[in-house]
């Protein structure tokens, strides 16, 4: 059995507290590996049946026990998936109270639940609110029923609107909506229309993801056969910039490549931890963790995961300790995804680095502001390459 602590011995000694690089409170992620069905574009791990849900809750709590006070305190909890809204109230309640008892929490915690619109009823929304969940992330994806059909979603635009309404009624004042663009056959005008309609809900947060083809998905196979008409590179550039312009004009902060907030307070506190190298603990199958020094990840299948924790071991499938060079690369890679970019100090002040800064700035990919190197829209469009320009 692999332990993220590097051995099977006493865990408290295995990871010295000072290994946690940052003083910032950590984030807790729980992977809920259940979905009603499989969307044709999605490569996340999920089980179609909730039969294992209660066993899974036990497993997650067992896993939580293993970590004790390794992470001193948390200020976010994110239930992601999969489809967390698929969980029964009972399982969800058991999970939340169990986690609450096992870890130390800041006084103000952001608790996010990912929900599919077809799961959101006024009753469920009220229940979630009562359980302490204070942020919903709704997988709306589109407000065009034809597009929703193409995406294989089980909800309609009307259901999405009803879900928003239910959430608001239940008391949610921090609502995030997930949208997708660059869909098969989608025009820029259609996309603008979707955004326009979505803004009528005044969401606090918007994630606008470009549809990406992931290996092993139905869409991927269709694309290989040429059965999917996706936008060209030039078109998708246009989608990206148009989205940014449109939402910024409507008062949203474009704070990460795919993320927008109606004011800085509504940024996703949890997701920012990933981009800022702040520690996070991931519980559940295929979840990833980072303690400030080490990274480790869990077994992918619910079965294996449960068996491992039930046997009293770590459900860990792999781990690594990134060296200084690797951490730097991570910091560049993650930092350049955000509006804040990276501190100038991170790229160093060798001649090479200075030259790279001058070149990228003159190419309009980055800008220097308050000792930080920040990506422009053009820079974001090539974000994957940016770290390579500084080595």
């Amino acid at each position, binding site marked *: 059995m692999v332990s993220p602590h590097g051995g099977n011995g006493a865990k408290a000694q295995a990871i010295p507290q000072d290994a946690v690089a940052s003083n910032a409170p950590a984030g807790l992620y729980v992977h809920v590996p259940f979905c009603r069905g499989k969307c044709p574009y999605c490569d996340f791990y999920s089980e179609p049946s909730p039969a294992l849900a209660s066993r899974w809750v036990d497993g997650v709590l067992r896993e939580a026990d293993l970590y004790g006070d390794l992470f001193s305190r948390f200020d976010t909890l994110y239930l992601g998936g999969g489809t967390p809204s698929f969980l029964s109230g009972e399982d969800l309640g058991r999970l939340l109270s169990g986690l609450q008892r096992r870890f130390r929490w800041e006084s103000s915690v952001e608790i996010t639940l990912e929900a599919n619109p077809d799961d959101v009823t006024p009753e469920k929304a009220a229940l979630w609110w009562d359980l302490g969940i204070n942020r919903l992330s709704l997988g709306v994806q589109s407000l065009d029923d034809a597009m929703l059909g193409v995406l294989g979603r089980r909800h309609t635009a009307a259901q999405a609107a009803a879900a928003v309404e239910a959430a608001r009624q239940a008391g949610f004042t921090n609502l995030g909506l997930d949208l997708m663009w660059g869909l098969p056959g989608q025009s820029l005008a259609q996309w603008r229309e979707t955004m326009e309609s979505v803004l009528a809900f005044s969401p606090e947060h918007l994630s606008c993801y470009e549809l990406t083809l992931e290996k092993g998905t139905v869409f991927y196979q269709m694309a290989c056969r040429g059965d999917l008409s996706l936008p060209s590179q030039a078109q998708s550039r246009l989608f990206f910039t148009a989205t940014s312009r449109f939402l910024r004009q409507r008062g949203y902060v474009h704070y990460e490549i795919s993320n927008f907030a109606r004011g800085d307070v509504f940024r996703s506190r949890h997701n920012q931890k*990933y981009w800022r190298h702040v520690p996070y603990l991931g519980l559940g199958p295929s979840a990833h963790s980072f303690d400030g020094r080490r990274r480790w990840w869990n077994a992918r299948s619910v079965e294996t995961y449960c068996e491992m924790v039930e046997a009293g071991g770590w459900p860990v499938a792999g781990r690594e300790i990134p060296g200084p060079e690797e951490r730097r690369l991570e910091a560049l890679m993650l930092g350049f995804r955000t509006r804040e970019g990276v501190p100038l100090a991170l790229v160093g002040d060798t001649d090479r680095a200075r030259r790279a800064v001058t070149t990228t700035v003159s190419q309009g990919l980055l800008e220097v502001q308050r000792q930080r190197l920040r990506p422009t829209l053009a820079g974001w469009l090539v974000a994957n390459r940016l770290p390579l320009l500084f080595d």
Partner: protein
Amino acid sequence: MPKIRNFSIIAHIDHGKSTLADRLIQTTGLVSEREFRDQILDTMDLERERGITIKSNTVTLPYVRPNGEEYALNLIDTPGHVDFSYEVSRALASCEGVLLLVDASQGVEAQTLANLYVAMEHDLTIIPVINKIDLPSADVERVKGEIENELALDADQAVLCSAKEGMGIQDVLEAIVERIPEPQGDLEAPLAALIFDAHYDSFRGAIIACRVFDGSVKAGDRIRFMSNGAVHKVEEVGVMRLKREPRKVLKAGEVGYIIAGIKTVSDVSIGDTITLDEDPVADPLPGFREVKPVVFSSIYPVSSDDYPSLAATLEKYKLNDAALVYQKDSSAALGQGFRCGFLGLLHLEIVQERLEREFDQSIIMTVPSVQYRFTLDTGETVTVENPQYYPDPVHIQSTEEPFIRASILCPERYMGTVMKLCTERRGQNPRFNVPIPGRVEIIFDMPLAEVIYDFYDRLKTVTQGYGSFDYEVTDYRPSDLVKVDFLVNGERVDALSIIVHRDRARAWAVQVCDRLKEEIPRHQFKIAIQGAIGTKIIARSTISAFRKDVTAKCYGGDITRKRKLLEKQKKGKKRMKMVGAVSIPQSAFVAVLKTDKE
């Protein structure tokens, strides 16, 4: 005391030379069946893949005739390419006879001819051997006809065999014994031995393969190389029997090896005569020629950090290949490297492949060049084989380039296409010979620069494999030369510069610009590629910027996988050369050298 026969095998590629050699080795019992390994003579991988023998190997086969007479048959292997024609001639000069191997289904092919001429020049006994008679497509009568008509040899004398099936091998051995004359030589005369091959052993130093013509040599003798006067004390003599087998003495008529603690390989030149220091022979054996490099190119490590390792490797390599010459070189684009001189383009390719494959070096080679001569306005003449040292054009009074006498042998029907090819390559003054009915020898005066590149490949194409090619450098002739530079986003990539004839400059520049466009990956900005003479742009291409490379989602915490992807890209980038802000992959430098596939 066994009697001696010295022979070699001449064959077109794939007609079965290696198979026959293996078969002879096996039949004479030099190795047991168990030890018998296919293709024993060709030990280097590289040779096998390219189907040519680069470094000749020699082996002494013990043969007992049915009547009980004992023989030592020395099989001298020869390299098979025009760059090595000199080595071939030295190897053949060490024999009294050759087996001319012809594939029973393919018949006589052009490549056979060049070496056959050498054999004829040396007055060697030629035994036609028709191989692969086991093949259903074998047509012995037709092949006999070709031997008769095209080679003017007596086809009735042809020996039939199948090297693969082991048929007729005894007949081949008997023919060698009966028809090839016993070597003549005066045991009492001063030592005269011909060096036809040498290679380096890290423990023993140079191992010289030689044919003793007169006198004898033994351990303890002080031998002298007649070309340079170097004297060494012999440590060991012997014969090659797959492994070296020491003997007390090597006598007139014999073929064997000499080890004399020679650490400086450059002392040993193929074709040189070895004699005894105390009792030297008056005249060296005829035919010695100093091998001079004619093609030059620079070698750079892909990663500049590997320069010391490349330096050490070249030093080692040179021990086994005295023909390679090199000196330090440096380039703004590629950093520290070496300027190397080669016998020809094939030699260059072999060095390149061996460095990469056997010595595990990642290298970039620059476009090969010949040695040009420039007369400056000061009256001074400078020789330049590296475009980097191209003189300032305002001071150049006149330019000259090396010319060769190119001799192409092919069936008559290809005369037209060969003439056209040679004229395209600036060939002048065509002459013709008809050595055998149906074949022509076409002789042209041609600039060496025109053949070092892809001439041989083209020739093979236009003659469908029937053209053979040989050349010798003759003289320097006036020429109109220019230097073409290549600029990537305005920065000159010195390693791509080339000196060419003015008429060829544009075509070259266009081709290189296109190749670079294919090989240089898109960057986040537009890249302009230009070919220029001085400040005048003569060709250009553009690589448009990549438009988008961004991952929509980056959370869920799986940072490791994404970072690993970046690391992989970063590694790839390390193998590239930075010119300004542009990363040029090694493949771009290689692609520039690729021959045009029309």
